[in-house]
């Protein structure tokens, strides 16, 4: 049974719960684990996301990487990371020559206005990235 007291207590709990945020150190170590410590270079990666997001619960996002996707030259992994969600990791995609093109899409959650980082690891070990700033008006994880 849902009483007014339960609803109020739950609402209060949501308000009083400390906002869980990833720290810059957590983001750095998550990205270092993905890249194997390689310093990412900016370029080749295109992170496609709306700059202004009404609803952070379901945000369409697509990542493209400029690569011929041949056996000799292809993208091995694509990673997506957030600065201020509770955890920095979003998803890691594993691709190969069978993919044909390096283009993936999904729908993600965004806790607040922040910077997203998309990274690609090539088969030659080089790492490329693009960072995108997004503004979120309704955050994920607030309503039940």
């Amino acid at each position, binding site marked *: 049974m*849902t009483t007014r007291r*339960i*609803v109020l*207590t*739950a609402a209060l*709990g*949501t308000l009083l*719960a400390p906002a*869980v945020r990833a720290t810059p150190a957590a983001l750095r170590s998550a990205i270092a684990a993905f890249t194997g410590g390689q310093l990412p270079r900016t370029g080749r990666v295109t992170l496609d996301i709306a700059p202004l997001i009404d609803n952070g*619960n*379901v*945000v369409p996002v*697509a990542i493209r990487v400029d690569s011929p*996707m041949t056996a000799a030259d292809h993208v091995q992994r694509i990673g997506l990371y*957030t600065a201020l*969600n*509770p*955890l920095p*990791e*979003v*998803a*890691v*995609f*594993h*691709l*190969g*020559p*069978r*993919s*044909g*093109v*390096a*283009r*993936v*899409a*999904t*729908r*993600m*959650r*965004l806790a607040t206005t922040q910077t997203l980082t998309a990274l690609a690891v090539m088969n030659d070990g080089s790492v490329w990235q693009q960072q995108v700033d997004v503004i979120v008006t309704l955050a*994920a*994880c607030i309503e*039940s």
Partner: protein
Amino acid sequence: MAVRALLHVPASARIGEVIEIRATVQHPMETGFRVGSDGQLLARNLVRRVEGHFDGERVFAVDLHPAIAANPYLAFPLRVTGSGLLTVTWQGDEGFSHSASARINAP
């Protein structure tokens, strides 16, 4: 409860063409950071890994984290090498396991 999944592939494709596979599965993707009506944290319950196999060969995989929206949607590419069966599998917490298959016709 039966799990619903959608797997979309083009009706037909040419050999050498790159097609887009789209897959969705019914799942709450509970983050483990939300508070329930009793004031306690709701246990984390995620789809952790999705894989695509074409005639038994793995052609795609993805690791998912709490920042993926509920009922996870994924779109990924595949270079068509011939007719065959594409199978997508979802695996996650609390023993979650589901698969869906679609035939790719490349005359």
